[in-house]
């Protein structure tokens, strides 16, 4: 099928901080403006705006995309918000992709924003209400429960230790030390630091978890004829995939994220990828908790089941390893303003594939990268594959 080719041509982001002074609109504006300036485009060039932002509870505004619209550059423009919980940050560029690939628009501006600090006193309380209102919420569950339950099941199924998994947090926080926007970069952190950090919900310790953050990220997407005009180095969408599993999360296997696998297979098929382990050079899987990176590498078919922690131990996933994973520093290191954090991963691929990632640059001129996010009730996989070839 003669599908229109779509490229990322510009990217911008704010710093990820614990509490931003900027309003949500102002954060969205800062990222959007930077993205447009990065490719020397103006708002007049933009045909449509796509917004990704996670629960309204965080920013504390009902229909928050409507509130955010002017900051995102949507004044007088076609504008929509897509929403798949934690998976939103990697879905929003998919939304941008279909805006352009459909032939409906030549240029789409994709903006993701989250201001979690507006949920006060603590953003985590927002997660009570992701559970079923009648059959689960009366038990007063919290977000840590589901991660801890899933992590424990994963560790038990494959006989993994906390140390195996803590190495992911160490790698990512060390990588983040080179990211100018990072909240929790730490070049000297050790596995012991992670294991000795405060116990939150066994098996989850404080440093196994990414920090609550504020921030925004934006990308400019363009159709082929525009992309080739505005840049010598467009980075192309090669594949996209997304998938949502049943909401009855206690009625399925928690050890393996098959929805991630299905999303990945959709993207691989579109990208014509037969052997993902050989054909993907950089991976930015979703890492809100350290075990999730392992979980997702397995779901993405980039590691055998239960074997992802071994890749970390062997150094395969280091920035200069054979398959760099989260060279950005990931959510664990850069920070986790939910939707913005997902889009940060796609922006990282853009910078890496153009050789513009500075101190974070992965060696060897990578040609293709994959970003993935995850969300809802351990239920959503969203995958974007970008490459230097259309």
């Amino acid at each position, binding site marked *: 099928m003669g599908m229109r080719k779509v490229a990322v041509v510009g990217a911008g982001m704010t*710093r990820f901080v614990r509490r931003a002074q900027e309003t949500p609109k102002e954060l969205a504006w800062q990222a959007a403006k930077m993205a447009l300036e990065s490719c020397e485009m103006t708002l007049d060039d933009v045909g449509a705006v796509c917004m990704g932002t996670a629960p309204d509870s965080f920013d504390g505004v009902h229909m928050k995309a409507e509130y955010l619209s002017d900051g995102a550059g949507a004044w007088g423009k076609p504008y929509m918000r897509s929403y798949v919980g934690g998976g939103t940050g990697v879905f929003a560029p998919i939304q941008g992709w279909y805006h352009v690939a459909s032939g409906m628009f030549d240029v789409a501006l994709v903006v993701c924003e989250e201001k979690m600090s507006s949920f006060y006193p603590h953003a*985590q309380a927002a997660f009570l209400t992701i559970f079923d209102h009648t059959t689960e919420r009366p038990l007063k569950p*919290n977000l840590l429960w589901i991660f801890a339950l899933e992590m424990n099941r994963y560790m038990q199924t494959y006989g993994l230790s906390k140390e195996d998994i803590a190495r992911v947090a160490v790698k990512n926080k060390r990588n983040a030390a080179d990211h100018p926007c990072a909240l929790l970069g730490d070049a000297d952190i050790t596995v012991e630091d992670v294991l000795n950090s405060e116990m939150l*919900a066994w098996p989850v310790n404080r440093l196994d978890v990414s920090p609550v953050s504020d921030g925004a990220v934006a990308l400019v997407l363009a159709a082929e004829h525009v992309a080739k005009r505005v840049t010598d180095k467009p980075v192309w969408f090669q594949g996209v995939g997304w998938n949502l599993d049943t909401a*009855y999360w206690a009625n399925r296997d928690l050890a393996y994220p098959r929805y991630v696998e299905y999303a990945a297979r959709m993207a691989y098929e579109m990208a014509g990828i037969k052997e993902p382990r050989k054909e993907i050079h950089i991976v930015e899987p979703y890492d809100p908790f350290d075990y999730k990176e392992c979980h997702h590498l397995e779901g993405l078919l980039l590691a055998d089941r239960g074997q992802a922690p071994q890749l970390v131990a062997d150094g395969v996933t280091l920035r200069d390893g054979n398959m760099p994973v989260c060279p950005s520093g990931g959510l664990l290191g850069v920070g986790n303003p939910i939707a913005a954090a997902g889009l940060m991963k796609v922006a990282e691929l853009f910078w890496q594939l153009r050789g513009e990632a500075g*101190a974070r640059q992965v060696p060897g001129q990578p040609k293709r990268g994959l970003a993935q996010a995850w969300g809802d009730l351990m239920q959503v996989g969203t995958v974007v594959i970008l490459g230097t070839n259309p």
Partner: protein
Amino acid sequence: MTSKIKEFSGTPLSEKDFEKGRILHRQDQLEAWYAWDTGVAIRTYLAALQEGVLLGGYCATCRKTVIPPRTVCEWCFRPMDEYVPLQDTGVINTYSLCYVTWDVKRIKEPEIPAVIDIDGASPLHGILHKLGEVSPDQVKIGMHVQAVWKPEDEREGAITDILYFKPIKEAKS
């Protein structure tokens, strides 16, 4: 282009900036209340809880017993056939020892949330609940547990009609 950009926007604040009035801010609270219709299947599930029964649903096409019951099977998209009373016992699928409440208050004695695969339901079909009458270091995945119900006259047709699940003392053979 991150390597080309020197200055990034985003202005970090500390909690002190708020406490000391260095920053203008305003608080608000959402008043959002709902009366969600329980509908056919969940209404029946809740009625059964009040009776001290965990109720599942059976899909004849998939030959699957699920909990809670639902009117349509999400796998074959055929209407579900019938309600099936299940045991009030099960096996710990996974658990956590949680030292933080939902609104992020620190607690000394951990809550022990667990997914419990319910006896009589299909494999890997369970519910979220909590464990009790067990010391945290004794909990194991695979442990057999039983529901501890509220007294009958205190039940109201809610998942909290089960107080928690406790380990079943295996008879010594």
